[in-house]
């Protein structure tokens, strides 16, 4: 992000503060990071950065504190979106963990999985798929089509870019019409991570434009978690309104 934009964002944040105190500061939009017996946080600060970007460009009020949550944590049930990050294979989850994650997703939660191992189907992704098949034995892990609403929930995006571009698509698990699990292999968190001085921690393979597009993908994912297929509905509204013959010509 350029310094000028950063300053604009700072100014906008100050100007945009609503006169009313937000109802339940603790109740702002938060994102959890799943803690498990592996390298669960390979890109510290990344989630905070994408949350800041989301608050800057959208109307969502966020809590920028990264919530690291175990499946046994009661706070999990205050946070319907959970990131699951890693860069290596990990040991299978316990049955309790699997059961809780299944219940979490069935109740309306969403999992965003990001692999930092730099491979399309690397050790972390394979471990995740193994666990997803335990969570939903009867569901497929399928490619999210390019016309899916996750690619247009806020920005119009053509590819799910991250720090890398090892995979041109994301995978997903569906719960009816909703994608409840999103799986990316392009190290999106790597593109978002900064150090305490504001410097990017990792270079993007396609340069800063790729980083910008990666942030857009992050914003879209967070927006999708809150609005689901709202954007898909938008195109139908003229038709829905038009078909209603409720007025005398």
């Amino acid at each position, binding site marked *: 992000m350029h310094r000028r934009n950063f300053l604009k964002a700072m100014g906008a944040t100050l100007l945009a503060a609503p*006169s009313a105190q937000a*109802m339940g500061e603790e*109740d702002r939009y938060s994102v959890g990071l799943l803690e498990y017996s592996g390298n669960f946080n390979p890109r510290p600060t990344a989630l905070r950065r994408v949350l800041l970007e989301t608050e800057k460009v*959208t109307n969502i009020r966020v809590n920028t504190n990264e919530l690291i949550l175990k499946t046994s944590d009661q706070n999990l049930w205050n946070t319907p979106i959970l990131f699951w990050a890693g860069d290596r294979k990990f040991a299978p989850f316990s049955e309790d963990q699997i059961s809780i994650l299944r*219940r979490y997703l069935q109740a309306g939660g969403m999992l965003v999985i990001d692999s930092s191992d730099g491979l399309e189907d690397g050790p972390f992704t394979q471990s995740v798929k193994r666990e997803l098949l335990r969570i939903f034995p009867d569901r497929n892990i399928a490619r999210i089509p390019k016309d899916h609403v996750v690619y247009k929930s806020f920005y*119009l995006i053509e590819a799910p870019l991250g720090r890398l571009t090892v995979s041109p698509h994301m995978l997903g698990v569906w719960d009816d019409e909703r994608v409840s699990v999103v799986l990316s292999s392009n190290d999106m968190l790597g593109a978002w991570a900064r150090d305490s001085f504001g410097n990017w921690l990792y270079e993007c393979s396609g340069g800063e434009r790729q980083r910008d597009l990666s942030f857009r993908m992050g914003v879209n994912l967070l927006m999708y978690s809150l609005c689901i*297929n709202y954007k898909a509905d938008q195109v139908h509204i003229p038709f*829905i309104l038009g078909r209603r013959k409720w*007025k005398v010509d």
Partner: protein
Amino acid sequence: MLPSFEYNSGDVLWLGNWGPIWIAGITILGLAILALSAYDLSPLPRYRRFTLLGLRASVFGLAVMMLLEPAVDLKNVTKVKNHVPVLIDTSLSMSLTATGNADSRAVLAKAAIESLGLPESLTDDNHIYHLLTFGSALEEIPLGALKDTTFDAPSSDIGATLVEVKRRYQDVELGGVVLVSDGTDTGGMGSRIRKDEALDETSQNLVASLGIPINTVAIGDPTSLRDLAIKRVKHDDFAFVRNKVSVDVEVQAIGFDGEVVQARLERAGVLLQTRDFTIEPGKTRYDISFEFVPQQLGREVYAVKVPVFENEVLESNNVFHFVQRVIRDKIRVLQVVGRPSWDERFLRQLLKRNPNIDLISFFILRTNENLISAPNSELSLIPFPTEELFSTELGSFDLIVFQNFNFGPYAMRQYLPDIAQFVRKGGGFVMIGGELSFADGGYAGTPVEDILPIQLPSTATKTVDLAHFRPMLTEAGTRHPITQLAFDPTSNQQLWETLPAQHGTNIVKEARPWATVLATHPRLKAGGKPMPVITVGEIDEGRVMTITTDGSWRWSFERAGDGATAREYQMFWNNTMRWLIKDPELKLLRVEIEQDSVAPGQTAQVTVRLQNPDYTPAPDTKGILIVSHRPLEHLESPPLEPTKFEFQTDARGVAVIEVPAPSSGVYEVVAEVQRPHGALSDRELFLSTLTTPEFSDILPRPDLLEKISTHTQGAFVSAPKTPTLVLKEPQAVQVNKRVVIQLWDSFFVFAITLGLLLTEWALRRRWGRL
């Protein structure tokens, strides 16, 4: 000797049982014998040869005759008379009188029958006549009863009558049919065939299937009428609320020229719309269409009327009543959200998954305060269509949800009166809390505040409270369908105490006098009473609700962390939607009437269903049914003195009452039951009217009768002319006496044969041939 005068018919019979092959063989054999004889006799002189050949041929011929055994069948026969039904149309249209004080069609029809000159015995040399009236049914009457025949049958279906004639006389021979009618056919034939059109194929097959001439006598002159009639009204039996409804009307105008007619559509005696048209010379049919949008559920009685002009033949066909039931197709919900949030997301998901809800959502995804470096072409954002949603299309919704939405930034102030008016006219409205809602949404002092069931504080004071809390049900809340998540009030209270806590609330002032508070804050006060959290109310025709938190989603998701389901969340919001749109299913007392309309003198079956507050059947409960009657001519007037019926529900909570409808009119049925928690009532109505299709089109149709006669080679005349009937001669005969005389079985034939043989033998000997 046989007396020839005893027999008037005879035939030759061949009794020998020889087949054609045998006869051909014998013929060939005879010819061969004659050929051989001719050859054998060729030396003889010519006359001798032919004499002998002639004798031999004669003998052979006689022998063959004896083999074939000829006989004469003598009979005394008489003809069997065929049957001729004479059909007289006794429908109501025959009672009409043409303009100018002429005789009625009935009088003309009787005169036409007399002019046929039927014998008193209804039989002549060839035919037996049957005098039959048709209208309700085909009924045979004696000739003498014709003068007392009444013309009041409700219909005149010529096609069905001819089919019935064919069935009734299928075992005898028909010589023809005589049809005396004005031709106003209420069956399919009359409507299928217009004046300038030929008989359609179906009608052709029908009339031809009798196989006899159909003679028709047309009664009435179509040119001497003056009548304005609502011939046909096309309407649906039910319509959807807030959906455009069309009523198509066909008006027939006869005997008018240049008059301006105003057709009216009325609902319950109140004028809805008018349509004007001018009658043109030579044009009798006028199609007009009414369109309106029903705003309320339930049955209503509509009337289409045209004015009554002077000297009209009939006035009763200038009005047509019908009942239309307005139902709901889908609940049309507009969800407007000021900021994406989990509360919005879970509610939207619930609404989207409900197949009975047609949801349109609008979320404010960004505001002018947000900073985006990407060009608009890389964003999927669209402008907020305030004009379309809150003005032009507002009336298409059943329910509006303002969820954490502040109208201020979107130049919407001018639409707030429309929203308030939408609610007062019967729409539903719910405001859900959040930092952009209630007082913080800027609604204080606006028309929207006027329709809210609570009052708003000014923004100068504290407007939100961030402490966690669990809403506490009020006494009303334990039983209200929105907050009743368990049947038993105590269990319901306990259930609410176990729901996840809310993380803060908007602060509101006390509830309005007309509102019902369902749940309150456990600590905050408003006007000295616990602050309302969930409040409902009815304002004019509409219903409103407020919930001052933005955390109801926790009843779904957070509760899942405890291993529970989202049942309570789903029940709460589904019940909210149903209550706000006045779903009839939520009525504890319901009156149902199966029929829209019954004929005067009949009864309507009224079913009353009573439920307890927990929606279990309420058995053995007494109530009263109040039936009010308003005549069709005075629907706008107060009803006549009501009739009351007491009832008691059975074990299923159901009571069935037969309500008589002695005369035409609209019957409003109100059920009332006193219950421990208050009085319940519900209403329904039904129509009682005599439908007379005969009067929907009273124009005589001589053209139709002529087409029938022409197609069946029958005669057609218009009364008072007398027709020359075309009837088939009887084809069947009756044999009174019969004798068969066998010609071959006699000595005379045998002697001739023997004589011829002897002669041939003698001549052959004499002429030197052995």
